[in-house]
């Protein structure tokens, strides 16, 4: 091998921190088996990580130390040979902690590079989420429910080793399956994990994504002020006050002004759907939302503003009415339009829309709910169709 190969793992902060670390560490350990040298590191700008906010981890494998040093002089690789998205909803875009606006998931993937996604969705659905790219790249889907856990208890559902197993298939230059298996055996001393990796290697197939295929939207971005433009004392303007909502003849309620620079369109994996006919106007979803993402409508009901919702699910938890506020998989939404406006325009059509959405409740868990939960989930789901026999 004569060139340096870069791999990035795009993941949900904290929830998938250990997972991303395991993958990048595994890559470097496997490369060592072949006499190559590598480094695994997290992106400085993503630290300190926040639950659910996208973050990145990198693995760089080089033929020799000089080449590695050369790549380490950069903050992060400019292009990657393989980008791994461990949550399929990141295909909609990456809004990092650090101030980058919205980056397409495939932004760094080089010409003919590979995007690996863990998802239960078909490749076509994922491509529709991904922004278009002028150069072709390949997509490999590893069938798995995106693996979420927390800081202290790791959900060991083999997602890490299955991704490691797929890597030699999509990028044989990086490392061989044999080295991956040796590294897994050494690191985890678990034959089942070695088998999982091999099975995923055997099952993984890629599909080429042509230039222009995917979501044609231009991702939102904004101008970053240089240090010369900063004011004395590094002061900035506060957010202005909110205003009542105008809709048709109605004026009333309240819509807070919001920070225009940090939106949460892709921070969530699920979002609330509101059945306005069931709402008893108890205010709790609005009052208890840490992100102030609800607008108070002129009807004194509460409308989700998708710009600000990070998908925590507290609104559903506090709502005293069954199926009034319900979390639904983010995959089921193609836009970020106001639900209340749709409701006002056509109540029957809205009700049908709500009923359809409610059939897509998230099967994933955002993390630890009770002791023993992960073991139960893994026992129920197995380690995936590509996993152990």
């Amino acid at each position, binding site marked *: 091998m004569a060139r340096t190969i870069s791999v990035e793992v795009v993941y949900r902060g904290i929830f998938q921190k250990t997972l991303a670390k395991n993958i990048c560490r595994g890559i470097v350990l496997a490369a060592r088996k072949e006499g190559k040298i590598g480094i695994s590191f997290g992106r400085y700008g993503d630290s300190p990580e926040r639950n659910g906010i996208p973050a990145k981890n990198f693995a760089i494998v080089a033929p020799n130390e000089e080449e590695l040093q050369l790549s380490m002089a950069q903050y992060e690789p400019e292009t990657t040979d393989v980008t791994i998205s461990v949550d399929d909803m990141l295909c909609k875009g990456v809004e990092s902690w650090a101030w980058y606006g919205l980056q397409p998931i495939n932004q760094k993937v080089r010409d003919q590079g590979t995007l690996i996604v863990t998802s239960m969705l078909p490749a076509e659905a994922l491509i529709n989420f991904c922004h278009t790219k002028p150069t072709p790249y390949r997509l490999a889907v590893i069938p798995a429910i995106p693996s979420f856990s927390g800081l*202290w208890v790791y959900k060991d559902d083999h997602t890490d080793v299955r991704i490691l197993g797929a890597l030699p298939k999509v990028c044989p230059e990086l490392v061989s399956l044999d080295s991956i298996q040796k590294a897994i055996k050494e690191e985890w001393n678990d034959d089942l994990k070695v088998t999982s990796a091999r099975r995923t290697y055997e099952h993984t197939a890629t599909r080429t994504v042509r230039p222009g295929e995917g979501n044609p939207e231009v991702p939102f971005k904004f101008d970053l002020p240089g240090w010369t433009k900063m004011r004395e004392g590094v002061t900035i303007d506060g957010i202005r006050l909110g205003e009542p909502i105008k809709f048709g003849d109605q004026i009333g309620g309240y819509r807070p002004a919001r920070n*225009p620079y940090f939106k949460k369109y892709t921070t969530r994996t699920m979002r609330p759907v509101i059945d306005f006919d069931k709402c008893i106007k108890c205010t709790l979803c609005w009052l208890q939302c840490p992100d102030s993402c609800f607008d108070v409508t002129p009807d004194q009901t509460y409308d989700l503003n998708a710009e600000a919702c990070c998908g925590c699910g507290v609104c559903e938890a506090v709502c005293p009415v069954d199926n009034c506020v319900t979390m639904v998989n983010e995959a089921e939404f193609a836009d970020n339009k106001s639900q209340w406006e749709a409701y006002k325009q056509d109540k029957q059509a809205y009700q049908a829309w709500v009923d359809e959405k409610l059939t897509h409740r998230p099967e994933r868990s955002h993390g630890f709910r009770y002791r023993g939960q992960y073991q139960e989930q893994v026992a129920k789901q197995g380690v995936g169709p590509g996993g152990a026999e």
Partner: protein
Amino acid sequence: MDAKLQVPTLDSPLPVLEPIKGVKKAPLEEYFTSGHRTCQGCESALVMKLMVKAAGPRTVVLGSTGCMYVANTTYYSTSWVVPWMHTQLGSSGSAAVGTAAGYRALMRKGKIKREPINVISFCGDGGGADMGLSAISGALQHMDYNHLILLYDNESYANTDIQASGSTPYGANTTFSPHGKAKRILHKRWKKNMAAMLAAGHPECRYVGTVCASYAVDFMNRIRKALSIGGPTFIHSLDPCPKGWDYDPMLSHELGELAVLAGIWPLFEVEQHQLRLYGKTRAIVEGRQKRLPVRDYLMKQGRFAHFTNDDIDYFQAKIDEMWTRWLIPGVLPFSTDVLNERPPA
């Protein structure tokens, strides 16, 4: 004890903040809005929102280093509507006094209009219960200045990835106290009893209270009372933290309730020398509400996932002791018996 506390001779006028009567009367306006970089289900962000919602537009907020500084005002953008300024980790107390004194002087000199301006200085448990304790103590002695110090307590240095603080509960997993095979429990300190310590230690202070944002109206009314009573005041809020406590973010609200219902987080206020338990804590003490077992609370959190039944029993025994043997149950941790219990680990 019956003598009314001396009302401070105040140059700066006090705001009139009526209690909010029920969730439906909560003000619509947001003075801390969307677009902060906190975790999904961050209760501390909710604390910020409710704090300024209760305080209103004529409020200046000071924040010492911690999640609520880093996450809310990074990369040249903010989600604050009211003026906000950063202050150093241990100096929430000094910043509160300095700012209140500054406004008083400006008003006295006629440089700004004479009007009530709320000064709220917040700190995390690292900045407040550990590093800033002396500055807060100093601030609570200066009776001439009106301000509120709010301690948002997520029981660790969560911003820098969960190091143990003086507020971390017994046995919790942190990056400073990982559980292992040789030592299952590494963190053996019991949580600091901040609010009672400050109430007992600052006899002139007119208001000290504990709150939990799961009870939003009670929370906002405590803020209003503290801001309008005069002199320096202190409020301690328990904030479930999905990152450090390791739980599904949708449980944030529920864990706050469970902490109160299990008797782990007593809701009380000391208003002009008068101690009053309130909310569910009062219901528990008066027998209208059953105190829940701590197991319900502990087993929903990854930071306690390593607990054995013995550990849970020990935790329960300590909480029981708090309600049965403390001089003032839930508040003052003295008892007449000498206890020689040791942790089972």
